[in-house]
């Protein structure tokens, strides 16, 4: 029966527009870093979970297998789980069930993405996420789904563009303090700066979009007895949730991410949380596009439908809020970078560091006991949620 699972260490590489390292090398650097933080040798690891988004980025078929030696998986059980953009946060859920079930005691989780290999532009890899029979022939591109969803969300709730721009302002500022932030993406921006950046797919402006990034992140998790033996400041995985909606995305009302709500409910139930607005103290929602953070905060039931933007205007989600819930204190994908799977795991690592009180300049002001990281993926379809606590 369910065993308690805790975190022993985490590692990360710099986030870069283009890395010299191969994907395997990035995976190694992050994995080695996590093992060092956990004070462990690779021989102590029972299994390896690998997480990485479409093979079309790195340009390798069976990408999980290819990365495995760099992820420390030689002659070990390893598995790659895949839920598109939700993969990074899912990777810790994957590790959780392999350990919680009693199958293994200690698990190394490695998330990697090298998007820059993909030509003529990494965005091209997203063309093939659409239905091959009746969508791809239209000459689709990635921005379509996001801009269509953002438009629906804005129109239904009458949200001004300025408010959505505020997400980018907040996260890009928070990102300034993150040690692995990608060069040139974080900074002190104003709402006007965001809205004056070129429109790429109205209502999406360039500065509302997370960048193309290479990078990797890793984590070591273990069963309760191992965690208690190795650390006096344990951080536990309290709840996990994941949910996938229909692939017929044009058959859904895009204004609300029901899949995130279902995933969140599953995680809250597991963690015994009745009132998430009181019991979640810090949150890292997925923000590949600025509106997505608000959209997801509503799906996580941390704000009523259509209310997340209003709370944003009041500073409820700010890092130094005293009675709100700090959202994306790391800087998120907009402020740190978006190496898809690695970015998801970076968000989990941020909650881990915040709970340990080791987030440095990014440490939130209010007292925290519990935090949540969430990612999203596929065709506006997947929600993955993990709740960590002291």
């Amino acid at each position, binding site marked *: 029966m369910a065993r308690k699972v805790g975190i022993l260490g985490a590692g990360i590489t710099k986030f870069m527009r283009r890395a010299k390292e191969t994907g395997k090398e990035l995976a190694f650097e992050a994995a080695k870093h996590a093992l060092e933080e956990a004070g462990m040798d690779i021989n102590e690891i029972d299994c390896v979970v690998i997480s990485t988004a479409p093979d079309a980025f790195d340009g390798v*078929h069976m990408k999980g297998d290819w990365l495995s030696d760099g992820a420390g998986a030689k002659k070990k*059980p390893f598995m790659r789980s895949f839920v598109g953009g939700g993969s990074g946060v899912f990777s810790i859920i994957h590790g959780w069930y392999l350990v919680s079930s009693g199958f293994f005691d200690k698990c190394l989780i490695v998330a990697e993405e090298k998007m820059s290999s993909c030509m003529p532009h990494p965005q091209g890899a997203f063309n*093939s996420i659409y239905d091959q029979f009746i969508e791809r022939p239209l000459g689709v591109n990635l921005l379509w789904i996001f801009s269509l969803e953002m438009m629906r969300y804005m129109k239904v709730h009458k949200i001004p563009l300025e408010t959505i721009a505020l997400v980018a302002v907040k996260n890009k500022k928070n990102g300034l303090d993150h040690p692995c932030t990608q060069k040139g993406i974080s900074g002190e921006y104003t709402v006007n700066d965001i809205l004056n950046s070129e429109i790429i797919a109205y209502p999406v402006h360039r500065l509302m979009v997370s960048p193309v990034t290479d990078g990797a992140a890793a984590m070591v998790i273990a069963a309760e007895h191992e965690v208690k033996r190795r650390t006096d400041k344990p951080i536990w995985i309290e709840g996990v949730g*994941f949910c996938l909606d229909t692939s017929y995305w044009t058959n859904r009302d895009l204004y609300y991410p029901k899949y995130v709500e279902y995933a969140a409910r599953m995680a809250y139930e597991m963690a015994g949380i009745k009132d998430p607005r009181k019991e979640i103290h810090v949150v890292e929602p997925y923000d590949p596009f600025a509106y997505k953070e608000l959209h997801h905060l509503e799906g996580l039931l941390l704000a009523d439908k259509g209310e997340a933007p209003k709370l944003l205007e009041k500073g409820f989600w700010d890092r130094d809020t005293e009675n709100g819930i700090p959202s994306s204190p790391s800087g998120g994908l907009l402020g740190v970078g978006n190496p898809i799977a690695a970015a998801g795991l970076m968000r989990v690592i941020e909650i881990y560091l915040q709970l340990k009180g080791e987030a440095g300049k990014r440490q939130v002001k209010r007292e925290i006991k519990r935090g949540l990281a969430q990612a999203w993926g*596929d065709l506006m379809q997947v929600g993955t949620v993990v709740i960590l606590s002291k």
Partner: protein
Amino acid sequence: MNVYIVGMGISLPKKSSSEFSFREMIYEAAIKAYKDANIEPKNVDIFVSVSEDFEEGTSIFDEYVPDQLGAVLKPVHTICADALTGLVSIYSLIKTGHFKIGVLEAHSKLSNVKNHSHLFAMGLDPVYIRPLEVNPYFIAGLEMAMFLDSRGYDELDAAFVVSKNKSNALTFGRSPFGTTITPEEVLFSEPVSEPLKRLDISPNADGACVFVIANEEVAKERKKDLIRILGLGFGGFTPNIEMWRGDAEYLEVASKKAYSMAGIKNPIKEIDFAEIDDTFSYKELQHIEALSLSRVGESAELLKEGFYDLDGELPVNTTGGNMGNGNLSLMNGARSLYDAVLQLRGHAGNVQLLDPETALVASWKGLPSASGAVVILKREG
């Protein structure tokens, strides 16, 4: 709390499945599985599908999983590995105690990929191996050479695998590639990558397979056909081909875990029959040895003595393996598992063994990987 296979459905392997889309094919397998398990998908707590993007021609194939399984707005995820590795996920999820019923789906639409060499080439290391621009079947040829050489076997030894499995398939009747073929005929077939010949390669096929897995509480409501998952394991060696020396170490890793979970000390004695990956002829021998179902260097002799025949002491690939049923890619493990359950249930028709109780199923992810998984099943009730 034990875990059981309580239902299964298959869209039968065939060379082409052009009348159905992948969704329709999977739907067929799914409704059969739900009927077999006597459940509705709304009662299922978790779903796992196995796929690889480049094989589907779709990035993030996970997107296209839920509908045909009845899994809309349910916890679903993809594992990029062979079906048996996906089974480990379901098993673990149920073992956490948070879920009661899980569904595993695997399928193959290999017929939709028009040039498999280029697909496999994409799996090669882009820095050191792929730029040689050699047809990727050379890896199977090279590995076969290493394996035969290290054991002192010859090509004819491997050809016996083809002969046995195609014959089993013919006896079984359902398998699309069953035929009578002598080991010598395999040897005289067209060379692909010496020592690998055309007939050493299992033919590509399409199909879909769905399993319903449940915890003890749910399973015990079934009076008959209780198939318990006794042990599982999965493992990898290294993707760097320069490091390979002809052993299937991934299955050594996987079986070590599975045997220890199942409490099996002497597999040759304790396993009644096995369904083992034979995507290439030599793979069956290589895998038998990695699984300790023979001593190293003795599998070929045992094979020729009939030890692994239908009427032998440890029948291997009773319904014809991949040689007889086709190479279904990530579904290979699922097809093997399906046939193993048929045997345990006593539903294997012409190839039915006498009252088998314990089965081993072992899969390999396929070219150019070095990873695989093992499952041990036991009939109860």
